[in-house]
């Protein structure tokens, strides 16, 4: 089974409001897949549909070869999910929350949990209500990883984590992925995607606008053009035959021009803004 996640034509509306429209993408076994988009782009709606938190109107979702609707409970046994908010029961101790998550799974994860708590420096004796966002996120990471799932789904995981813990977090992901796990990383922190992901999908206004390897997204056919000609300065993305661009420019008095591969940030901003692109 190559596709750990297969989403086809997923559509979900919240009443009259848009959720996601006709979203389709695959995530392959063993890859770290970046899921990028600004707030409200539909990333969380897609993830919540995958996990059975919300019902979608049309399309299909298969996770680990199983139907996300009819085999939802079975899927969750093999999934480790970290929500963006990382909220738990305030009166519980950290150790109780971690054990509770393992108990509901019917597993004894104490060894792995202890290892993760040590790596992430989680104080298990404290009550949840005493924890900062960053410390709650660390508890959430332990709960998502302690059962060594086949698929990780992280929704904005690094917000609130200090840089050292962020490094440990990505080291852990890579270790699990090297052991055969797959990871979907939903984020709007582009350097994380560039540094850690194999492929990525870009969402905008509920639609999936691009899926490719991170390498291809950066070194795509689209070029970032910065031009000063005829006393006017323009910046735009150009995709197509570069000779057409040269022909177009030949009639102009060019004072300065730069043609570059766009950064991931430029690509993202370009798609985010629905930016001007010449073909």
């Amino acid at each position, binding site marked *: 089974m190559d596709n750990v996640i297969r989403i086809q034509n997923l559509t979900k509306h919240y009443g009259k409001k848009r959720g996601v429209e006709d979203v389709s993408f695959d995530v392959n076994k063993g890859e770290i897949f970046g899921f990028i988009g600004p707030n409200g782009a539909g990333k969380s709606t897609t993830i919540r549909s995958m996990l*059975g938190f919300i019902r979608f109107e049309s399309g299909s979702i298969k996770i680990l070869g199983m139907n996300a609707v009819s085999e939802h409970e079975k899927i969750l046994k093999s*999934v480790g999910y970290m929500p963006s908010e990382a909220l738990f*029961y305030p009166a519980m101790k950290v150790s109780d929350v971690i054990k509770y*998550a393992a108990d509901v799974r019917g597993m004894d994860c104490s060894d792995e949990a202890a290892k993760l708590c040590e790596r992430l420096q989680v104080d298990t004796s404290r009550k949840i209500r005493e924890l900062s966002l960053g410390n709650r996120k660390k508890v959430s990471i332990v709960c998502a990883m302690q059962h060594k799932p086949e698929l990780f789904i992280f929704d904005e995981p690094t917000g609130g984590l200090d840089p050292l813990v962020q490094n440990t977090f990505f080291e852990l992901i890579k270790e699990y992925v090297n052991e055969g796990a797959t990871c979907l990383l939903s984020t709007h922190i582009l350097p994380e995607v560039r540094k850690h992901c194999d492929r990525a999908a870009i969402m905008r206004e509920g639609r999936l606008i691009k899926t490719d390897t991170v390498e291809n997204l950066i070194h795509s056919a689209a070029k970032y053009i910065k031009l000063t000609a005829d006393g006017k300065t323009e910046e735009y993305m150009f995709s197509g035959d570069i000779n057409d661009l040269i022909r177009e420019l030949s009639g102009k008095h060019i004072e300065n021009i730069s043609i570059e591969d766009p950064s991931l940030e430029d690509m993202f901003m370009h798609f985010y803004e629905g930016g001007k692109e010449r073909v």
Partner: protein
Amino acid sequence: MTAIIKQELKLNLKSMLIWALTVGGLGFICILMYTSMEGEVMEMADSFSQMGAFSDAFGMSTLSIATIAGFFATEVGTVHGLGSAMFAAFFASSMLSKEEDGHTGEFLFSLPVSRGKVIAAKGMAILTHLVLFTLICGIFYVMGFAALGEEVPGEEMARFLSCMLLMNVEIAALSYLVSATSSKTRMGLALGISLIIYTYDILGRVVPSMKDYLFIGPFSYANASEIFAHIDAPDHSFVTSVLVTVLATICTFAAYTRKDLAS
């Protein structure tokens, strides 16, 4: 599922104990007040029993409040009836919705457990706490009788507490449905339902034309005065109660398993 039941029992234990100690303690104090009020109660008993509809409504026409059993049924019966109904409503109305209110739903529902199992597990926790609440209150009432050196009317007491428990289960089932469906003012709505049910029973006993429809409300079979006076509950009242409980539970399952989890 066992883990969720244990978790809910543990999380709500303190709240249940506070309610049980309050309601049971109030009942205990009421029982102790009987000796100090015995003289006045004797004088009041006759006039209280002849106040027509008012006496009917509060059960004073069926049982003399001059006796300890009558005093218990009219005074503690009302305290326990209202107190336990409000506890059941308060407790059940937040059981499902608290996951969304506290944004813990994403954590709970990312674990391999279906919504149906969550509903069942939390429902079992509610039932267990209602049983414990009733037992604790029962212990207080028995202690009250013992403190006065009075013999506990065992059979009547057991029937009274069982009927109250059944009534609480019905109110909890309705409140559980509120918890699964309503997005706002759940607790107010659930407490309102329990008070409306109580008021319906009072009105049903005062207004003659409503007497035939008393069986709809659970207070009809859980009326302490009638239980201690060995008066049978209205026909169909138990069946109606069970039907309402089952129907509310089915609706809870139907609504909650189809509901989008709030973000």
